[in-house]
């Protein structure tokens, strides 16, 4: 019952040693990653640069699995402006692209950067990212996003965040839960809530400013929403039975959630302004794990009304329910990509639980993972990666896999288990 909300500031002070900090390891990249060099950025300001911008961009691009950054030790020159670039220095070490940059500090940080095509010897693109000094890492991620988009055609999702639940066991064998928010690269973890009672099903508000979750701190499950910047929170439900799976509608006005107060678990809609509650599904079977289609017009949910858990779709305008998945005996906990087409879910095959992607258009299901106890998939806001939880020994760890299955990462925590990751939406520039 000893729950407390840790304020942002307090946590920031001890963030470098915080629990559950993730270390990201690429376990499988694509076959021929593109070679790219990020030359160290110049710093126009007093003192030293608050962060190593080039290093952060380097790590981001490496983590995508699609790029192979050039080691700084191999660089023959370290240009910081167009005039300093000798393309032959980069051709000599087989570099395909080069990024240079300069950071200046006024009231805010400003990064001017440029992407060069070494092979063709031309500047492809130049840009600028601005942000506060305290958000220097996010500014660097913003540069990585721009470069990634220029080279792949897909917006980058490096300047985003994750929430997850980490669980450590105290010496008496009791679990201790922490709800943590961190940058997408696992850095700067901040504990939002901690205690001995379970914390479950965290999800993001569409503006990325709030999270919702289930906490058992009152000895019963209840749904809460919490503002990230202030720690201010509100209890939304506390009904008899299940209070579970809160997910914000894309317009932020409603929350879909699961209650069993009327007998069996059903999906309900809570109007966040009026607090009016509408029951959507009405079945004696289990209806749970709702998730919104990006257009906000329908919801996918898990139901075992057909005997085994499968994904169904609920259309809000008509109340019509149709079954979506048919392949296999167990398909559950869907999350829909921003394109409204790819659905990440948990699929059982030969008794093992894998992460799979179901294409709503072709109705093809592709299994993405080989591990056997995978759950809680969450899709990056650019649709490129699925982050999920899996078991490694007795610990739960996070893994990530490209939607096309090409790239895989693991994100083990330094200690304890990490579960139920939820990837933030695209965030407004800080």
């Amino acid at each position, binding site marked *: 019952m000893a729950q407390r909300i840790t304020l942002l500031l307090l946590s920031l002070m001890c963030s470098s040693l915080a629990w559950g900090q993730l270390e990201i390891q690429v376990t499988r990249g694509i076959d021929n990653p593109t070679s790219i060099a990020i030359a160290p950025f110049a710093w126009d300001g007093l003192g030293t640069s608050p962060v190593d911008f080039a290093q952060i961009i380097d790590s981001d691009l490496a983590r995508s699995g699609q790029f192979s950054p050039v080691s700084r030790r191999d660089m023959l020159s370290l240009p910081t402006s167009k005039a300093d670039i000798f393309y032959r220095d980069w051709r000599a070490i087989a570099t395909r692209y080069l990024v240079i940059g300069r950071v200046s500090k006024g009231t805010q940080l400003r990064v001017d950067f440029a992407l060069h095509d070494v092979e063709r010897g031309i500047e492809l693109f130049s840009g600028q990212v601005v942000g506060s000094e305290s958000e220097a890492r996010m500014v660097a991620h913003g540069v990585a996003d721009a470069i990634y988009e220029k080279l792949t055609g897909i917006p980058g999702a490096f300047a985003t965040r994750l929430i997850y639940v980490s669980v450590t066991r105290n010496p008496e064998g009791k*679990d201790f839960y922490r709800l943590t928010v961190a940058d997408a690269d696992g850095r700067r973890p901040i504990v939002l809530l901690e205690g001995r009672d*379970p914390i*479950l*099903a965290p999800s993001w508000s569409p503006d990325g400013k709030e999270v919702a979750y289930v906490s*058992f701190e009152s*000895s*019963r*499950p209840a749904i809460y929403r919490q503002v990230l910047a202030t720690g201010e929170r509100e209890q939304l439900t506390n009904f008899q*039975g*299940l209070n*579970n*799976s809160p997910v914000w509608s894309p317009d932020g006005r409603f929350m879909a959630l*699961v209650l*069993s107060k009327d007998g069996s*678990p059903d999906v309900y809609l809570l109007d966040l302004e009026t607090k009016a509650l509408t029951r959507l599904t009405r079945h004696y079977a*289990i209806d*749970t*794990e709702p998730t919104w289609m990006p257009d906000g017009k329908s919801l996918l949910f*898990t139901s075992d009304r057909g005997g085994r*858990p499968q994904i169904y779709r609920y259309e809000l305008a008509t109340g019509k329910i149709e079954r979506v998945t048919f392949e296999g005996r*167990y398909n*559950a*906990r869907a999350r829909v990509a921003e394109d409204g087409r790819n659905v990440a879910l*948990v699929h*059982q095959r030969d008794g093992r*639980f894998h992460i799979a992607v179901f294409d709503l258009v072709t109705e093809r299901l592709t299994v993405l993972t080989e591990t056997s*106890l995978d*759950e*809680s998939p969450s899709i990056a806001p650019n649709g490129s990666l699925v982050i999920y939880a899996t*078991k490694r*020994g*007795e610990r739960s760890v996070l893994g990530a896999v490209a939607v096309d299955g090409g790239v895989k990462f693991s994100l083990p925590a330094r200690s304890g288990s990490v*579960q*139920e990751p939820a990837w933030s939406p695209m965030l407004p520039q800080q």
Partner: protein
Amino acid sequence: MTTKNTLGKAAAAVLMAALVSACSSNAAKEEAAAQAAAERAAAEQAAAAEAAAAEQRAIEKEKAMMMAEKREEKRRLMDAASAAGSVFYFDYDSSSLSDDARAAIDAHVALMMADSGNVRLEGHTDERGTREYNLALGERRANAVRDYMVASGVPAYRIETISYGEENPVAYGSGESSWMKNRRVEIK
């Protein structure tokens, strides 16, 4: 007339004296009688009180014996419930009560019928499958135990159910030996 008057006065005086004397003798007699009556009443009362007390003692003795018997019976029921265990196990993906679970729950039902305490049923699952679906499965298991108890005569308001899904496992490994210990309802 005068003598007659005097005589008359004397006679009146004698009469008065006699009367007074008679009166005083009557009062003493009455007093004695009243005292005797009071004493009798007191004795009777004492005897009655003694009888009542004896009866009360007998009742209390009987009560104490009944209480002791009841306590004995409750102790026996508690021992039976505790011997039956406070954890009921389930098959994979099932909320059906096994014969063992029914027998164990019967022991708890017997105890509940003998006293007025409330219980809390906590449903759990193993780690396989999704957490949120498992919360629903855990609730189904807790409800299965509740429904069986209610069918056996326990009023529903005395039973609270809660599901923890796959949270709070008792065994941490990934394998049937751990999973079978985690698929359970705990009575608290």
